[in-house]
């Protein structure tokens, strides 16, 4: 199997498994014909087309007349969207490091947000158990810290940050820059 073919098969994972069983051979054949000689990956247009096609095919799973519509897909998409926006909000807040923020918020966001994002992507690719895991993780992280009880994870953007200086411990990379960390913070 050439590199190109392997990459094509990897991209085809955007499609649901049942669809792949039916169509994968045919699509890979077409991609091998279409892609210019000497490339290891299909062209950008084809990559975009496959990803979009995969999402469409997944959205079309179990499409039935309206009276028997399945709520599975919309519910899963809703959960995924919630987790993803929450993770992005966390990440944005944590990345903008601020001396008023405790070390806890800093690392909690930087570590868990990418994990949740990865989980959402995996779940989209068909790994169902990860949904439960990601939701549990998000809930545990939000509830595990008493200060966030009032806010909950849904309001990451408006979360109240602890202002107590004794709690503040800069992360290791700022501590190594001695001249910076000795400076008095303008806020506290």
């Amino acid at each position, binding site marked *: 199997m050439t590199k190109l073919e392997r990459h094509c098969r990897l991209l085809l994972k955007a499609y649901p498994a049942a669809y792949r069983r039916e*169509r994968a051979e045919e*699509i890979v054949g*077409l991609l091998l*014909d279409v892609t210019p000689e000497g490339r290891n990956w299909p062209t950008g247009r*084809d990559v975009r087309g*496959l990803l979009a096609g*995969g999402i*469409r*095919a997944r959205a079309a799973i179990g499409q039935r007349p309206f009276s028997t519509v399945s709520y599975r897909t919309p519910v899963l998409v809703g959960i995924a969207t919630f987790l993803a926006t929450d993770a992005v909000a966390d990440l944005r807040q944590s990345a903008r490091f601020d001396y008023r923020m405790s070390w806890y918020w800093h690392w909690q966001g930087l570590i868990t947000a990418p994990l949740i994002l990865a989980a959402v992507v995996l779940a989209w690719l068909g790994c169902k158990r990860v949904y439960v895991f990601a939701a549990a993780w998000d809930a545990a992280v939000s509830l595990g810290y008493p200060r966030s009880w009032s806010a909950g994870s849904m309001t990451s953007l408006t979360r109240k940050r602890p202002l107590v200086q004794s709690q503040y411990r800069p992360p290791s990379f700022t501590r190594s820059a001695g001249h910076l960390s000795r400076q008095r913070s303008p806020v506290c």
Partner: protein
Amino acid sequence: MMREPTYFVLASLLQGPLHGYAIVKRASELSGGRVRLSAGTLYTALDRLTAEGYVRLISEQVVAGRLRRSYGITDEGSAVLSAQAQQMAEAARIVTESDLQQRPGPLTRKARPA
């Protein structure tokens, strides 16, 4: 109203059944290189057209280790395609056959007083 890629997929099958790669080439030829179908677009269109009964699977063969399926247009498909072509021709006629002499000149900005 049919989307352009769908229109050209159907149009490329008018001369007879074709397989995926041939459809991509033919659609590009017919449109003067404007319509470049990606694999994803082509198969999304073929899935839908097959489900609607406008296209059907004609044959399946393995050529040089690759699976090739040929698709052909159905009678229903040709009817829908010509209805669409008719509609587009009528829309085009409004512009192409208007009396060029009687048309007011192109809109130009009024000269500003100095």
